[in-house]
């Protein structure tokens, strides 16, 4: 997989508060990347740095193997951005917003913009402030896509949308974009929704990336183990990669990553009366990673 974007040792702090340090992240070309993290962990800050909107304290960003300077215009020509709160100049009409953005982008495709409006059932003459949140999201999407971005960054855009709209958005648009070769970085609170579209997962926690792995790998090698013992459970299971564990009487549960047959054998050495291994949903994976 070739890398579209790569960060090296990014550091950002706000005053005395260190948001993250030595952050190394790679975005593979044409992939959908999920960026997960609890509130306040710095996802939006990371995205803004990647977009060249705010400066990092230190570190480097490379785009297509070229170092990108903060505020680089050429780089921004290739990056689309959809923020958490759909922001538009409220007084504008749909068509005016498109014209406003067309002035910024060299590769602006007016035909595509018109097609997208049609596809999203958006009226050029409609005032933006009269649009629903879902329609605004579509408009943002149309603006972002008409600029022909190689990288599309979405900062939790689906929060607050109803389920059918979210489903349409994710299933139809994001997947379609990824299939057409657009690299996507998707930050969301609605973790389960990524499950259907994500190729690669990042989990940002306590100032560092605690997970940077393909989703298939994560799905395959993250397991929950339920153990029941005759007496009290052991103090430790004696294996690496225990993300979290709970004890209740003679019962014990643990989430292990990466899971392997060797680890199962080691656990069996404690002679549990029951050892049950099961896969996890993405949401469960995320919760397990950040629980520790």
């Amino acid at each position, binding site marked *: 997989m070739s890398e579209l974007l790569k960060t090296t040792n990014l550091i950002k702090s706000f*005053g005395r508060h260190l948001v993250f340090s030595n952050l190394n992240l790679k975005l593979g070309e044409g992939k959908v990347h999920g960026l997960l993290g609890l509130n306040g962990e710095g996802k939006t800050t990371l995205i803004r740095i990647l977009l060249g909107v705010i400066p990092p304290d230190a570190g480097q960003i490379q785009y297509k193997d070229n170092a990108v300077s903060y505020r680089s*215009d050429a780089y921004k020509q290739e990056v689309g951005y959809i923020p958490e709160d759909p922001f538009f100049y409220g*007084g504008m009409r749909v068509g005016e917003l498109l014209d406003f953005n067309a002035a910024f982008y060299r590769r602006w495709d007016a035909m595509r913009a018109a097609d997208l409006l049609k596809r999203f059932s958006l009226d050029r003459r409609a005032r933006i402030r009269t649009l629903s949140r879902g329609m605004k999201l579509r408009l943002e999407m149309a603006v972002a896509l008409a600029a022909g971005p190689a990288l599309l960054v979405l900062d939790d855009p689906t929060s607050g949308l109803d389920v059918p709209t979210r489903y349409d958005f994710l299933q139809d648009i994001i997947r379609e974009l990824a299939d057409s070769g657009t690299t996507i970085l998707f930050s969301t609170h609605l973790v389960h929704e990524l499950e259907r579209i994500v190729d690669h997962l990042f989990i940002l926690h306590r100032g560092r990336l605690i997970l940077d792995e393909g989703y298939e790998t994560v799905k395959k090698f993250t397991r929950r183990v339920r153990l029941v013992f005759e007496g009290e459970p052991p103090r430790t299971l004696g294996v690496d990669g225990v993300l979290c564990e709970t004890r209740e009487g003679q019962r014990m549960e643990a989430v292990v990553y990466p899971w392997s047959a060797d680890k199962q054998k080691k656990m069996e050495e404690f002679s549990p009366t029951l050892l049950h291994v099961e896969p996890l949903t993405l949401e469960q994976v995320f919760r397990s990673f950040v629980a520790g």
Partner: protein
Amino acid sequence: MFKQMIVKEWKEKIGLFLFALAGLLLFALAFSGYSKDKNTLDILATTLVLIFLPVFSLLLGASGFSSELQDGAWAYLFSRPVKRWRIWLAKYFSLFTILSVVILLFTLLVRLHPALKPTPDTFSFPLLDEDISYGILAFVLPLLLFTTAFSLSILSEKTHAVAFLAAFVWIVLQVAVTRGSFSLLNRGMFYSPFSLVSILSILIPLSLALASLVTLNRADFSQPRSRAWMFTKSAAAFILASVALVAVFTFGTGMFQRDRYIYNLEARNDAFYFATEKGFFRFDLAGGQTKKLARHPSMWGYMSMAGDKLAFTSYDYGGGWRGFAQLRIMSSDGKEDRLLVGTENQGSPLYGGTIYPVRISPSGDRVAFIVKHGPKATAEDLWVVRSDGSGLKGYDLGIPDAEYYMIVGFGRPETSVFVLCVQRIRPGNRDARMGARLLRVDLESGGVETLADQIRKPYVASMPRETWTSGPGGIAYIQHDEAASKEILAVLNPETLEIQTVDLEDSVTAFRWNKSGDELAFLTAGSRLGVYSLAEGRIVQVKEIKGYDLRWPSEALEWTSDGRIMLRKIEEKVSSICFLDANLSEQKAIRLPFRSHYASRIWSAGKYAIVEDTENHQLWGVDLGTDQWLRIY
């Protein structure tokens, strides 16, 4: 991008624009409603220019980045592939177009509204009590306030808070600059503070604008405090740099230390007295030496001499930022300098006022002067005090809106004073068309009599001081003849109050008494030079002249001590002064020792003809016996 940004800003600020439009409309209606009440018109005009336009400018500027700072929209805009300085510039320019349209509408209103018709160029503002052109207040002030508020708008989306902050910052910085600049007054740099205040008033908003540009370009907008800190640091740096730059120019190059003006005070047979911003000077004709008489900064050169006494107005800044006018008196050699009347005493009716022209009586016993612009609204404008400081008495001239005064002289005996006054031009003040008036004030009864009106520039001149008390004499002035639609020369006998008029085909543009006070030389709009004999009551000489430099005509004409007329001349870029014989034919020309693009003022004192180098603020005198030039100042 600019086009889209302009459209966007206009759409966003349309409410503010409509507010301005509605305001102007209301003012237009109010002007119509109060078209006959000039005081209300004055207040309305002041409110419009000093409150409404500045407040609109502040609100408009303060709204600059408000829509971007709301809901993190800045991140959306900054993620677009466009340089931030272009965003700043596009926004500034967009809002500037709105401001320009409002100012254009304002200009149309004041130009076209019938109630404001008599005041096409200027009017007075009660708050400032000065004649200030629309240009400064209606264009420059809103622009500077708008720039200040726009620069600060990157700090917060709260428009009203930013507008208030901008007004506060503006006032604080203006006071600081004014106070700082005025401290230079006591160094004798009279005009420097005004220049510095003006320059810094422009440089400070420019500094704030640069600071906002730097902040926009470099600050992390997700951190309001760090953004504010960067703006504060940058603004402080740019303001300090501006102050340093101005200081370098002021103290390093002497640019603002130069005198801006040289005032002719008195040409006598033994000396020529003049003033600059740095003080009062006496050029001794016999010794060819210039001596400084008083270190007090002169107040526009207002000074009067009689015999051995010299009364003058000055300002005492006392180390503070506000100065107080003073009337002082000294001997003509600069000794025995003492305060005659001050304005610093809060109990005095003259408190805080500005002392305008001063005239000492021929006997030297009394000094008449005008006081205006004090915070105490006194009816008296003309004041007379004995030269020992006693017997201060005020006189109400009874002319509303009287503004510019000239004390022409004391009557004979010294129980009356002739005063020329000009009425303020302001909205609805149709009396201002009357032009300047010549008044006679009886110092005993306090009665005021108008001797002439419709007086035009160069207004009025009494005969030379030496002959004021003896010969027939008179007060000459140019009067507008409405029927003939021309300016005529008139001479008033101050004793009999008889008026002689000099009837010419064309308008008189300048006149000058000869040294003995019995003849008047005059220039006309048709380039004619004439001589009027007061004794004979007729024009004794008149001739069309060609090739002479008649710019600034009131300063282009002079008599020498031996009774010849002096004129300026420019031939093939060479300037000279020429002397005419009794037939008004050129007798002699002496080339000036300097080159000047401007018209030089000329005087005559004893054996010297004196010329001002207007560009370099120097005075040169030529000995008419030897034709040798001497730099006087």
